[in-house]
């Protein structure tokens, strides 16, 4: 490929002489094109996002003036020692990770059959309809949706009223971690369905047919062909459900009770209320480490192609 390729008929090459030269220069030096394309977004990420993460990490090693709560640049590991030596905070971390894992498992279980139906059984029109049905809840305000669950779960609320109508006794779910769990599963379900659907839909029917030709029955085909191929999608969806649960503070604040202490709450109350930014930053390092480890694991499972 040389620059002569640009001498198209009609003398167009003469008219845009300068552009031709620029284009030719860029053609010969692919790194120049890559640099032009990559510099703005990378500059954004490094100078703004990474820099702010670094600032946060640095702040974790500082302290605050107990009276005025201004940040004082006294370097110490104090915040980290407080977190790891306090049984309360350790319990909070375990509780949060446990909740995130539970939500991920349940959402994956609920999403898979739904995505399977959407990808392999539904007609194209039904498929579009179902897609709209999943995307629409994302547009309803996150806060309003949580509030709906509050109304459902409250004493003598809709749930209790319905149970009463069928003759079952009331279960008071409000302000329990079960309520928080249910709301998390509800909120992140679309984020799990979409990548799983994308992964399942990518599998060509010929592979399923081949498996059946070789004698595999439905369950076996699903277990040995579909699930492994859909796994990247499931893992991709799990990145969302896990990280969204790990850092959420609004749901436990609104729907949770006295035992709804999660990492997000601790971070939020330290930043927005106690104004102990260094402690909040130290606490924030923990979800970062957890998610970094999770992402590395997810990458090896091929989830990044499936997001």
């Amino acid at each position, binding site marked *: 490929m040389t620059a002569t390729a640009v001498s198209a008929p009609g003398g167009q090459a003469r008219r845009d002489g300068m552009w031709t030269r620029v284009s030719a220069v860029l053609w010969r030096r692919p790194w120049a094109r890559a640099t032009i394309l990559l510099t703005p977004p990378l500059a954004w990420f490094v*100078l703004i996002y990474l820099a702010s993460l670094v*600032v946060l990490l640095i702040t974790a090693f500082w302290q605050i003036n*107990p*009276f*005025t709560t201004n940040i*004082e640049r006294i370097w110490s590991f104090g915040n980290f020692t407080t977190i790891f030596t306090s049984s*309360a905070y350790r319990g909070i971390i375990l509780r949060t990770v446990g909740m995130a894992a539970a939500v991920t498992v349940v959402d994956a279980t609920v999403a898979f059959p739904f995505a399977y139906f959407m990808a392999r059984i539904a007609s194209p029109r039904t498929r579009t309809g179902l897609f709209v049905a999943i995307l629409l809840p994302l547009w309803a305000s996150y806060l309003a949706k949580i509030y709906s669950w*509050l109304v459902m779960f409250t004493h003598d609320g809709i749930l209790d009223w319905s149970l009463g109508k069928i003759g079952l006794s009331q279960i008071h779910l*409000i302000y329990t971690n079960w309520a928080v769990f249910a709301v998390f599963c509800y909120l992140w379900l679309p984020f799990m369905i979409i990548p799983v659907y994308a992964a399942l839909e990518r599998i060509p029917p010929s592979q399923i047919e081949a498996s059946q030709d070789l004698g595999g029955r439905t369950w076996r085909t699903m277990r040995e062909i579909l699930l492994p191929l859909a796994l990247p999608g499931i893992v991709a969806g799990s990145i969302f459900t896990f990280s969204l649960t790990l850092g959420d503070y609004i749901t436990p604040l609104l729907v949770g009770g006295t035992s709804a202490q999660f990492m997000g709450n601790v971070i939020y*109350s330290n930043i927005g209320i106690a104004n102990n930014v260094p402690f909040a930053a130290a606490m924030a390092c923990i979800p970062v480490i957890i998610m970094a480890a999770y992402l590395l694991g997810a990458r090896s499972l091929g989830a990044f192609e499936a997001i």
Partner: protein
Amino acid sequence: MMITRARITRPMKITMALAATSLVAAACSSSTSSNSSSPGTSSAGPSGLTVPTANLPVLQKIGKGEGQLNLIAWEGYLQPQWVKPFEQQTGCQVNGKYAGSSDEMVALMKDGGGGQYDMVSSSGDADLRILYAGDAHPVNINLIPSWKQFFPAFQSPPFNTINGVHYGISLQWGPNVLMYNTKDFATAPTSWSVIYNPKYKGQVTVPDNPIQIADAALYLKTSTPSLGITDPYELTQPQFQAAVNLLAQQRPLIEKYWDLASQEIFDFKNGNAIVGAGWPYQVSTLKADKFSIGSVVPAEGATGWADTWMLAAKAPHPNCAYMWMAYISTPKVQAEQAINYGETPDNSQACAYMNQMQAGSCAEYHANAPLSYLASISLWKTPLATCDNGKTDCVPYSEWVSAWNTEVK
């Protein structure tokens, strides 16, 4: 597929590394710290602290309004009923950000309000922290005519006036009341013991706020005199621990510690709670909805708050801010807010207006007999290590926060 090896990696990576390193270097050396060391100011405060902004020049004359006013307020302090006429009169559009605790207000006022906020309706326990952090601006009290009508106790109180320099204008004050569902309590409870009573397991609610430890201390002051508690905000270690233990015992009785005023309203309305501690705002809202709510200040007294509209050090709209202070302190508006929220106005002339708007409200909210009533309320103040009697063995607020988060909740 065209795949081209690009040799940009190394130079680009070096640039990125340089950028990150320079930022880290800047972090270690720059002095954008908001930790202000005051250059030769003269106001002394607790433990010899000085107010960094004491010598800033005050406004001499209220100029033309800037068209906007950004306020940090308690829920219920910016009702359209009195905000709309203000906006029409002055042209200053009011943008309100709600905060549910003094701590939140102190946090939002960081760095003098960050150049974002003009005023904050902070309570006594937040005021000093804001002042000594250098986040408040001196106020020219002569520009606020209604100030002369204030009760003497609220004209220059120690929480917003230091060494004669005002940093805001007193607003209103009130108690943290004991709320109860009149359907479950035929007569009003007479003691705070009702919220510590295991009989009401799962039906009690109290605020999610470390200052609640003072409420426990206030109860212990009467119920366990051997502890020797005199001031619920100045607790020695044994007194502090006793209060924290009481609250830890209370925890199983509580289904939810309320963070937002609306949560307490929701909980009473839906039967999630039948008794608890709250603000008069929740009581007023439930009463307006015709709910069977009652409120009382029990025999042991109550904690309470006295609020100030404090001017931010970096207020972007100072003229509108002064207009607001002048407006909110007039007797009629004070009366409106007092009745709507359920608190006591600081303007002595508000009583007549209150009775005009709602018969008997002046007496109901003690607008005419504040001194004796005031004595029964322990107003919020920031717990410091230095007790008022000069000793230094009182528990400071930072320990209240950590005890609340780890031992109580």
